């Protein structure tokens, strides 16, 4: 094996020759290049697809925009992927994975002329803004539907990583269910991953074994959970992409879809116009960041009407699910009487509401 160094040297020579011959000129210049990086697959019928579909909407709305997409980006790759996108001419980068906040900020500091937006983070810089949907509050509506549908009074929640935002979703869901059904329990299982499908199916099974008959989830892709619930003949509530309803044709109750298309189009337009400014943005159903999926065939008329009426009140701003007094699992009051938690607190949960069975870590 001696002389393998020559191997690499030869590689260098061959490849550099190729580079010299192949240096290519670019085609018609786009009005803006957008780079999007995500932690999973763009067609996962889940979180990543919601971002990708929105990006495609931007392209339909603004045909002069060019898009570059990187899937399955690991935390350790994120910085160099963004650097390469910038080299390819990206002026707007959508770092569409939760762990990409600090890598994106590091790149943003090196490239003040490039704008960055990141879903779910909390930092704001001159050229870095964050945004997310008000999922924690809106999960209340899903909880209302679940609380009315359950016969065993046990709801199941499969969740990926114990983050503050995820705990908020579980809390919102349980508060909604409890509002219509005081006897309800929500059982929570963490998979400690966003995309281990086999484990997600196993977790769903575990919840069903405990007697849960309505299952929901917060994972990259809801597919595995929806299908496992469907196979066992229990109800399910989807989250992330509206595409997911097809995976539970009979057990589907309803679901929440993330819809970023308008927001991305506005951002692209503002970058083109030179009027883009960073912000801490949280929007919900009324502003088009979220959509409630159609009800499934097994949902009775009275449930549909009730959920829709609560939704109206919710959209009119009459209802904040996180209004005290709210106690945690140990009976300690976490949100005091008269206090209400707003958008800026949604990442701060490190506790679970009374009646949730599971660990906040």
């Amino acid at each position, binding site marked *: 094996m001696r002389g393998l160094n020559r191997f690499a040297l030869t590689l260098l020579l061959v490849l550099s020759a190729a580079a010299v011959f192949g240096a290519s000129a670019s085609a018609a210049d786009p009005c803006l290049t957008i780079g999007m990086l995500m932690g999973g*697959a763009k067609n996962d019928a889940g979180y990543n697809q919601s971002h990708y579909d929105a990006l495609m909407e931007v392209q339909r709305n603004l045909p002069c925009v060019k898009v570059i997409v990187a899937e399955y980006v690991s935390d350790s790759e994120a910085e160099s992927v963004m650097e390469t996108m910038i080299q390819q001419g990206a002026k707007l980068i959508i770092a569409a994975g939760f762990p990409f906040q600090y890598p994106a900020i590091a790149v943003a500091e090196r490239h003040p002329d490039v704008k960055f937006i990141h879903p779910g983070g909390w930092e704001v810089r001159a050229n870095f803004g964050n945004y997310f949907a008000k999922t924690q509050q809106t999960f209340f509506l899903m909880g209302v539907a679940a609380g009315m549908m359950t016969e065993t009074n046990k709801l199941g929640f499969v969740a990926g990583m114990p983050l503050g935002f995820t705990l908020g979703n579980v809390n919102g869901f349980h508060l909604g269910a409890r509002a219509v059904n005081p006897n309800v329990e929500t059982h929570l299982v963490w998979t400690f991953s966003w995309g281990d499908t086999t484990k997600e199916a196993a977790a769903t099974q575990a919840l069903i074994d405990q007697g849960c008959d309505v299952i929901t989830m917060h994972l990259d892709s809801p597919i595995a959970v929806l299908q496992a619930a469907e196979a066992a003949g229990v109800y399910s509530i989807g989250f992330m992409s509206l595409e997911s309803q097809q995976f539970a044709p009979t057990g589907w109750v309803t679901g929440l879809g993330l819809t970023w298309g308008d927001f991305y189009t506005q951002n692209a337009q503002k970058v083109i116009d030179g009027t883009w400014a960073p912000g801490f943005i949280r929007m919900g159903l009324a502003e088009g960041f979220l959509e409630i999926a159609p009800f499934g065939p097994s949902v009775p008329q009275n449930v549909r009407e009730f959920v829709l009426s609560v939704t109206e009140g919710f959209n009119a701003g009459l209802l904040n699910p996180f209004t005290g007094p709210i106690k945690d699992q140990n009976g300690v009051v976490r949100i005091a009487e008269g206090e209400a938690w707003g958008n800026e607190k949604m990442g701060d949960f490190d506790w679970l509401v009374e009646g949730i069975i599971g660990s906040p870590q």
Partner: protein
Amino acid sequence: MTWTLIRGVVSGCIMFGVPLLYATLGEVIGQRAGMVNLGLEGILLVGASVGFAVTAETGNPFLGVAIAVLAGGVFNMLYAYLAVTRRANQLASGLALMFLGIGLSALIGKAYIGKRIVGLARYQIPGLAQLPWVTKTMFSYDVLVYLSVPVAVLVWWALFRTRWGLSLRTVGESPTAAYAAGRRVDLLRYQAQFLNGCLAGLAGAHLSLALAMAWTEGMTGGRGFIAVALVIFSRWHPLRAIVGAVLFGGAVTLQLQLQAQGTGISPFLLNMIPYVLTLGVLVLWAGSRRSAAPGGLGRVYYGED
């Protein structure tokens, strides 16, 4: 409460032990012929992606399983070619196969992410499923679950009760002696690796067609390596592999069941148990030579030419 837990763990460890068992049985055959195949993870991925793609295209999960089995066997012939014919280092050849499997399965499966399939149907055991203390999910499994123990017995029978099995084990103990006794060393090793690949392909197909009913990149999550550990844990015996697979599958399920019940034991500690246990078993059996590792395991056989 406890009863629910036991029921859940039993039904879960069967479901999640089965793919581990198939992969382990394959590797037992391979290692009995004296070859360590670290490429199992790659074969599982190829089986899972091919099985899913075929099922998505044809709508027939049984065809998906059949093609995945064949794909696993054929794919593993690459490893056999390197490690048997070219006399290459087994560990390196296995890792190369693993990398190839990761890459190829990503290419094969790319178009099928987020696709919906009709997975393997589940059948209830008549009678048992009607018992009052049984939940909906107990005794309701797909056909690969029901076949797993018979396959383990078949592997045991083939290895320990047939002439072919004797030859194979002789090759594993000492290729030189086997050659002297007139056994066709290379051919037997190819056969062992083909079966190994088929069983790993089957395991992969079970993951994507019966458990997750979806294809995602890297969905095997290290189960190929767990299977290699299981071979050691079961000390190269197909029937002990059943115990090992149930135990390893049970560790994952127990952790999820405990969470669902609200008992807080760190899942990280519970997930460590299988590996620590395997190491412990190895230390415990260190002195004993009886039915331990095949003598020629992992060594390159250079032939007698």
